[in-house]
């Protein structure tokens, strides 16, 4: 914006604002909401540099809580778990919706394909509390479905939910169970946009179904895949609070405790507000940097970004 404005320009700007005043009125409720419920908490992170006092003003302590944080082995464990769980989730869950979308798209019987679609979207709409209940039931070592199958083949039942060896696997599988169907939507949309002439031409050239998939479908999906992958990296610091928080228990805490659950415990259970705010701020800043970088990269592919 230019710093030198002629009075005429100012006047026309004032007129423009006045003319669209009704639009501004309509924005008042949302603006008030965002200021109170989003911007005040953003500034609230200053608590990380203050010692919280129940009575009287808080005391500024500078980086004291960050020093504590970076010398806490529990924090490093939470950081390691966050990165590991995020990486496992991206590696194992990322390809599933792609395959699912292709399979549903290739299904000749359209009624069946539609039935599959209406079933696989469903788990996305369940809370992690419910999904934890479902997984606890089917993985129960006493009478769970999975362990009954394991026992049928003559193996010892596995206490999946309370075994630190298996718990991360449970996180990955339950994530796939919940999201693979819903996440396939983006790829289904991309598949719908493929020009059918490409396939017709390939058919005339005598290309098999498999080679059509390899040479037309996959490359056309690649752009969407790259975008989704990059955007996932942007949320790397977020290993899935609701999922881990509900599924976690004392016997798996060493492999499951992520930064969010750590901050929750320190802040709301142990009421160490300032320290927990520092934990949250650390995570928030890294998350911000990651999202900004990955969005910049995603924009290069022009397939879409967060904004």
């Amino acid at each position, binding site marked *: 914006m230019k710093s030198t404005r002629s009075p005429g320009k100012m006047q026309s700007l004032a007129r423009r604002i006045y003319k669209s005043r009704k639009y501004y009125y309509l924005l008042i409720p949302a603006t008030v909401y965002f200021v109170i419920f989003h911007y005040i908490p953003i500034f609230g992170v200053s608590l990380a540099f203050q010692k919280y006092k129940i009575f009287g003003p808080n005391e500024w302590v500078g980086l004291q809580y960050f020093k504590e944080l970076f010398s806490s082995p529990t924090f490093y464990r939470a950081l390691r778990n966050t990165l590991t769980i995020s990486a496992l989730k991206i590696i194992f869950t990322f390809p599933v919706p792609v395959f699912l979308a292709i399979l549903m798209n290739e*299904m000749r019987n359209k009624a069946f394909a539609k039935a599959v679609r209406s*079933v696989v979207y*469903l788990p996305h709409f369940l809370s992690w509390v*419910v999904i934890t209940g479902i997984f606890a039931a*089917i993985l129960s070592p006493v009478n769970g479905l999975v362990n009954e199958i394991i026992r049928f083949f003559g193996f010892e039942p596995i206490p999946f939910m309370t075994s630190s060896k298996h718990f991360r696997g449970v996180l990955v599988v339950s994530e796939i169970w919940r999201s693979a169907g819903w996440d396939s939507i983006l790829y289904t949309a991309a598949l719908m946009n493929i020009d059918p002439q490409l396939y017709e031409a390939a058919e005339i050239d005598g290309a098999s179904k498999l080679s059509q998939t390899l040479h037309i479908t996959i490359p056309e999906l690649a752009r969407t895949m790259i975008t989704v992958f990059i955007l996932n990296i942007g949320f790397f610091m977020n290993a899935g609070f609701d999922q881990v928080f509900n599924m976690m228990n004392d016997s798996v805490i060493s492999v499951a405790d992520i930064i969010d659950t750590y901050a929750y415990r320190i802040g709301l259970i142990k009421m160490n507000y300032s320290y927990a705010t520092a934990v949250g701020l650390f995570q*928030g800043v890294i998350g911000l940097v990651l999202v900004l970088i990955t969005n910049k990269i995603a924009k290069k592919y022009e397939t879409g970004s967060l*904004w």
Partner: protein
Amino acid sequence: MNKKVSIFQILNALILLFVMVSTLYPFLNLLAVSLTDVEYVSSLPGTAILPKEPTLRTYIALLKTPFVRRAFFNSVYITVVATAINIFLTIITAYVLARGDFFGKRAYTIFLIIPMLFNPGIIPNYMLIKNLGLINSYWSVILPGAINVYYTMLLRNLFLGVPKSVFEAAEIDGAGHWKSIWKIAVPLAKPGVITISLFYAIYHWNDYFKPMIYLSDPNKWPLQVLLRQFIVSADKASLFGPLQSVLYSQGETALPFRSLQASIIIITVIPILTLYPILLRYFSVGIVSGAEKG
């Protein structure tokens, strides 16, 4: 070549069938557990999808407990009020972003997006609710999610799909913004508005975290928080106080934990299953992926 294709089709059908079964089986199993007579539930295998000696005893026991009925009411109340606020705010904001050509529009969009990029964490949000004096008020659960930027942008895109000439014709006829919103924009983007309303409603129905940390009075808890008590408690003894009474509501012997868990999961999920077909009817791939305009 033809034969190859059909082998692929068969394989594909089998894989998709497996996907479908593994999605639905756990529900059917829980339904069977919840309907099985409490005498037989301990011997019911995890593979069962048919109840043994079907009865509604556990459901009746749960619904006879005032605490559970209250939780159901709380869930409905929070969902209805919060969704009404959501949809109102989302519609008027999306309308302005789609139609308005006003000074500061770009800046305003950035103002909306910044909170999506930076998450200040649990404590600053908790402090806000505390400082506003909203702890233990339903508003602590309803207000913090009053509008979702992503859904607002989706609806804005749908409103952009409404031809400008339609709005202009209405304006010539003397329609103000208010009329344009409710008589033109909303009816013409009806599937999108319904889809987004259902997304909001499901979000509130599923919310357990805000009620858990903000509502200190258990009488204000929604179903999800109640269900969480049944899920995280390893056994009857560690179950939250007021819920202990549910166990013995059928007489001397306690109801099996497994039956109660299954029944309350089903009770919590039923409203979602009721809304889901409506969602499927109005929802299209384009609405969510942002490809569809109008």
